[in-house]
């Protein structure tokens, strides 16, 4: 049944498909699925760029200004960046800045939101498209130019911004302090434009989820990815404008001579930090909540069991999002901020650990007494839990204000953030891509390559980032071009070399994923409509891939999305749109 549908010419809504030119259909498309896939290609490209920048950083950290170990390929760079194989401090600081900026804003965030909010929301709620398809198209075509402007900063005189992705003023506000002129302005302009793209998306996602759910799709029958993406969209809606305000103020300080952050003329450097982190902390929840949603979905489907504590999971998402507005000062414990304020931020930060803990236990509860199928998505989703726990627990250390005195701005924080962003979000993204790839492209990704990529990534990821806890505990500072200048750090060069080579192997392993992704587009096994035997509407009511308009008729929803292994049914899944008390007869289980 499903295989003949891959050409996606179901009856109904898209009679005008034949009239659409290639450009209207695949370039300037208003179809949420195409836009999601456009974000996918764009973000994977930027993920590679971010990885390359990390490699450059790791080379410097392994062999700080060591003429015996010139940067491989250093000759490709201009002398203002890499001179005789030696990475210059200016370029190192730019690499640090841009690695963070690109990974957060042009890789992880669009991978989680631009891709999956766009792709999944209408399908999972039973809608034919987003509320505002043209606005959706504008959202992608704003993000891509923003990305290109960001890349342009590498090619201007003075190089790219070197003030860290956090851009603390006054370092970022006055070119006098960094020697960076146009690069800094391009950074700011790019981020402002990207903000507009995110806002357009957020307005669309929120309106669509509120207004366009299919009949029977009540709030508490929504799949968790949609819940997570909906709450994330609210965070984006409210946080990004604050960042935009701060960016504008910084840009004005840089260009027209205002004095918001310049201490000498009455500005307040700490105001930048407050505004940035008021946005920045919700931002990190933007970077994890969708991942949590995907993990819930995949673990339930992979365990053939309902999500344990669905209501608690929803409340936890909302709780994390809400409390996330009240913790921003924990990035500023050592800033000179009033210590009493520090205590209140510590309290809220400690509290926010609780809903995350609830989620971890509920994921374990979902697996408990399940029927676990460890296909590629499941491997990644379970690993998310294992790695996120480490990241979350390391967060408790820095949440304690006195301990943070020592650990702030050390590699302990670098370890913490990479365990949540890579061990957490990126693993979830790899799992989500493997999971929804069949729906997007009508083909399966190769399972063997998927598993090889998974194990190599898991191994090397831990070899790179776990030792960074130790480096931080030993006191190694962040963003340090040459740690060997410090007597107490010089002994760690062996460990740095170990970490760097693990990192190079980690980055190289991603080639397997890239190959699998591209190869399977053309040669992957044709995907059935519902390869994972899942319950949500994208699997049960639409072919792989779905046509323009998604569904043959408006679906009707009869139950929640996690009725796996229901005692009344002969099959171990029960689609949301299947009426009647008895589940349908089982289909052949996939070979994986």
């Amino acid at each position, binding site marked *: 049944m499903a295989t003949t549908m891959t050409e996606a010419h179901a009856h109904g809504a898209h009679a005008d498909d034949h009239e659409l030119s290639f450009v209207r259909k695949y370039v300037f498309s208003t179809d949420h699925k195409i836009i999601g896939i456009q974000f996918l290609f764009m973000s994977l490209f930027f993920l590679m760029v971010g990885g390359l920048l990390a490699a450059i950083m790791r080379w410097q950290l392994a062999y700080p200004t060591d003429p015996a170990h010139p940067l491989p390929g250093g000759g490709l760079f201009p002398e203002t960046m890499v001179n005789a194989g030696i990475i210059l401090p200016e370029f190192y600081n730019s690499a640090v800045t841009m690695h963070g900026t690109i990974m957060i804003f042009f890789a992880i965030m669009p991978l989680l939101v631009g891709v999956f909010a766009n792709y999944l929301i209408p399908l999972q709620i039973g809608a034919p498209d987003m509320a505002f398809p043209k606005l959706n198209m504008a959202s992608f075509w704003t993000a891509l130019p923003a990305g290109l402007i960001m890349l342009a900063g590498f090619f201007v005189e003075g190089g790219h911004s070197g003030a860290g992705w956090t851009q603390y003023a006054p370092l970022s506000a006055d070119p006098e302090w960094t020697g960076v002129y146009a690069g800094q302005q391009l950074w700011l302009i790019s981020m402002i434009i990207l903000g507009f793209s995110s806002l357009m998306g957020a307005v669309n996602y929120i309106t669509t989820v509120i207004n366009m759910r299919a009949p029977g799709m009540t709030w508490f029958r929504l799949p968790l990815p949609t819940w997570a993406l909906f709450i994330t969209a609210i965070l984006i809606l409210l946080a990004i404008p604050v960042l935009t305000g701060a960016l504008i103020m910084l840009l004005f300080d840089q260009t027209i001579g205002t004095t918001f952050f310049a201490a000498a003329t009455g500005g307040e450097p700490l105001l930048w930090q407050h505004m940035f982190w008021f946005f920045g902390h919700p931002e990190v929840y933007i970077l994890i909540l969708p991942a949590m949603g995907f993990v819930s979905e995949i673990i339930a489907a992979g365990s053939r069991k309902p999500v344990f504590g669905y209501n608690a999971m929803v409340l936890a998402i909302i709780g994390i999002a809400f409390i996330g507005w009240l913790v921003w000062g924990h990035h500023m414990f050592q800033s000179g901020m009033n210590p009493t304020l520090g205590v209140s931020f510590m309290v809220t930060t400690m509290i926010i650990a609780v809903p995350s803990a609830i989620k971890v236990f509920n994921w374990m509860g979902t697996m408990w007494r399940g029927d676990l199928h460890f296909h590629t998505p499941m491997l990644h989703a379970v690993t998310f839990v294992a790695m996120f726990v480490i990241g979350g627990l390391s967060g408790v250390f820095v*949440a304690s204000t006195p301990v943070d005195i020592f650990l702030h701005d050390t590699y302990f924080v670098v370890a913490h953030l990479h365990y949540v962003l890579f061990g957490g979000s990126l693993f979830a993204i790899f799992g989500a891509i493997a999971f929804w790839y069949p729906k997007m492209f009508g083909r399966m990704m190769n399972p063997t390559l998927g598993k090889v990529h998974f194990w190599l990534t898991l191994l090397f990821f831990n070899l790179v980032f776990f030792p960074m806890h130790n480096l931080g505990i030993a*006191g190694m500072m962040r963003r340090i071009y040459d740690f060997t200048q410090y007597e107490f750090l010089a002994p760690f060069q062996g460990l740095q070399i170990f970490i760097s080579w693990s990192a190079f192997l980690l980055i190289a392993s991603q080639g397997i994923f890239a190959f699998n992704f591209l190869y399977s587009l053309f040669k992957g096994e044709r995907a059935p409509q519902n390869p994972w035997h899942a319950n949500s509407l994208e699997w049960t009511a639409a072919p792989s891939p779905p046509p323009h308009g998604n569904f043959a008729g408006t679906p009707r929803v009869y139950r929640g999305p996690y009725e796996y292994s229901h005692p009344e049914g002969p099959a171990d899944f029960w689609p949301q749109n299947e009426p009647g008390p008895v589940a349908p007869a089982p289909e052949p289980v996939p070979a994986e």
Partner: protein
Amino acid sequence: MGWLPEAVSTFADQIDGIFYLILAITGVIFVAVEAGLLYFAIKYRHREGRKAYHTHGNTRVEVVWTAIPAVLVVLIGVLSVPPWLEIRSPDRIPDGAYVVDMMASQFEWNASYVGPDGQMGTDDDVTQRNQLHIPVGRPVVVTLRSEDVIHSFFLPEFRVKQDAVPGMETPVWFQATRTGEFTLACAELCGTGHTRMGGRVIVHSAEDFDAWLLAEGAGPPLEARLASTNDQP
């Protein structure tokens, strides 16, 4: 290798104590969760004929695993407050602490000591680059300032860290427990020379410190200095 540096200040042990408490609590949770995941992954893996147990959850267990983490984090938070306030509250800076003015700039630390007139900020102050001389066993308060961008005054062995923000004067106090030479580093990205903003902290015995001050042309002997700094803001 890769562990806490030797502790040389009076409050370092308090900070380390909370660090170890958190390590113990998170360590137990870490082992339990990872072992649990591994155990479930193996025990409940798919086998022919296996059927999952259909349940939507259990409210009682939700309450338990909400309450326990909540109690633990509150405990950690409550225990963290006293050391934090002792270290950071301006009104907890010990009376008679010896004052050093520390000006951070791109890319060096300039420590200033009162001159013979006993007043900070006058022409007879003695200023030195990238080294901080202090006496053992006496509280010291460093007034952090910055000439340009944000730097961060980091003494790893003392468990001291405080940002130096332009436009602000931020006091940070500590007391050394032994003599010796220790590390001073900048812990906030401050430009291309951030990496070389290192220095030394030299802790003298009380007599040696007096001698050093005299030799450098800095202020009156320790006792007199302590008496006069009692009047300083």
